[in-house]
């Protein structure tokens, strides 16, 4: 107990926890709509494409976080427009753009000399290195995203259930769709700092997937998803510090283990997940 209190008093851990709690709210919240719309691969794609943004930041000597944010939004907007202007399927488009972003990032970074600590922190996440500027960006955007999601909860849900009927109910579907893509891109890039490019989409997908198996209604679905996300982050962070393990991977492993336990429970009780 004393050890936990000591950990919590460390300034870097304090920043990490605040950032983690904020991300534990927005990633699983938005993840409910991502899983409902079967867009899990989209999240993974954005995360990988942001490597180009990180590389541009490193090469241009600017904040890789902000350049990744710009590239992430550009990637989302690109997928949105290409989905509407071509007959190519979304997963193929995302596959092309995400590997393109990843390849561009690798080429740019290969031109830099020496060890690139920023690169590794974006690849695998480094929540413990969140500085005050990062924290301000994460908190500012998180507040904006939560506010927006609460305001747009009904149209977002209608859109996720059925686009055509949503339009009939007065939802401006195309505008909201674009807005959703942008919101998702921002959320993913914010999460990259915590969990890394490789693992971030897990926090978008695992909590709502667990929540779907536990929640009796839509009202409780978002709540259970957010609670699961917060528990994984806080406990994962503590555990990773105590056992000297990588924080991002520990958080995700907690989620994966919980997923299997809940899935087994659902199979035993209901026969199917």
């Amino acid at each position, binding site marked *: 107990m004393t050890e936990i209190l000591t950990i919590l008093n460390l300034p870097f851990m304090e920043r990490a926890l605040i950032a983690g709690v904020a991300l534990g709210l927005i990633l699983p919240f938005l993840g409910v709509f991502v899983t*409902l719309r079967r867009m899990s691969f989209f999240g993974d794609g954005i995360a990988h494409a942001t490597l180009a943004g990180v590389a541009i930041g490193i090469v241009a000597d600017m904040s890789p976080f902000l350049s990744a944010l710009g590239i992430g939004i550009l990637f989302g907007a690109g997928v949105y427009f290409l989905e509407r202007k071509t007959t190519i399927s979304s997963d193929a488009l995302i596959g092309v753009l995400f590997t393109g972003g990843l390849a561009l990032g690798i080429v740019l970074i290969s031109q830099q000399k020496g060890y690139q600590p920023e690169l590794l922190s974006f690849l695998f996440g480094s929540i413990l290195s969140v500085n005050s500027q990062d924290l301000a960006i994460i908190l500012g955007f998180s507040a904006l995203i939560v506010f927006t999601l609460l305001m747009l909860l009904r149209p977002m849900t*209608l859109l996720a*259930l059925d686009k055509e009927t949503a339009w*009939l109910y*007065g939802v401006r579907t195309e505008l909201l769709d674009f807005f959703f893509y942008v919101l998702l891109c921002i959320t993913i890039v914010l999460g990259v700092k915590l969990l890394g490019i490789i693992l971030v989409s897990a926090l978008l997908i695992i909590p709502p997937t667990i929540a779907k*198996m536990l929640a009796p209604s*839509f009202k409780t*679905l978002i709540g259970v998803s957010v609670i699961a996300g917060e528990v994984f982050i806080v406990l994962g962070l503590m555990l990773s510090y105590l056992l000297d393990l990588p924080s991002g991977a520990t958080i995700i492993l907690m989620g994966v283990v919980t997923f299997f336990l809940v899935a087994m429970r659902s199979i035993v009780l209901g026969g199917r*997940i």
Partner: protein
Amino acid sequence: MDDTYAVQAEGLWFSFNSVDPILQDVSFSIPRGSIAAIIGPNGSGKTTLLKVLLGFLIPQRGKVLVLGRTPQQARGEVAYVPQRFTFDKSFPITVMEFLQLSHPKCSKEKIVQYLSHLNMGGMLNMKLGTLSGGQLQRVLIERAMLGDPKVLFLDEPAAGIDIGGERTFYELVLHLHREHRSTVVMVSHELDVVANYANHVLCLNRKLLCQGRPEQALSPETLRELYGKEVALFHHRDRP
């Protein structure tokens, strides 16, 4: 265009690829208060026409008026039941939540009362993903009618439902049509549905081949031209 018609179309052309138009110069009028059926073989453009009337697709040429306005302007007064409502079945939304989400101004009491009146009260707390095909289509039509629409569009709403379920479903449509005095426009490939429930028919095979009351419009020659083989129509006297 005339106010006595719920839906009017004039010279509609629509093509997905600008080479092979699926709708070719389609013009018709559907009187207010009628049950109209759009019939035709597979690939004849029935669903495309319905989507143009609803405003989901924009025709390359021609004009659509729903209740005297463009489909976009009329969307608050129309409702739609799709052929297949595809959604994530593991999404734990209850029937009550689904109906409240669609009609936030509708009180819980009104929804309960409305569904009980139609012997569907037992479904309220069931998850949408656990309903059978027939039950889901009934919930969808309830959702459509809760908004008291002036025009209800149905796209082969009984596809995939067994014969008994199909009959119950169309009886419900008929009941709601009488209760709400809505105009119903439905796509169907089943001629017995047209004969039993519709009082206006549109025969479509990319072009409009006939329109009017079924017993008048559906001559053996028209049906042969529409389906390319001999088809007979039997009308039940107790239907509209």
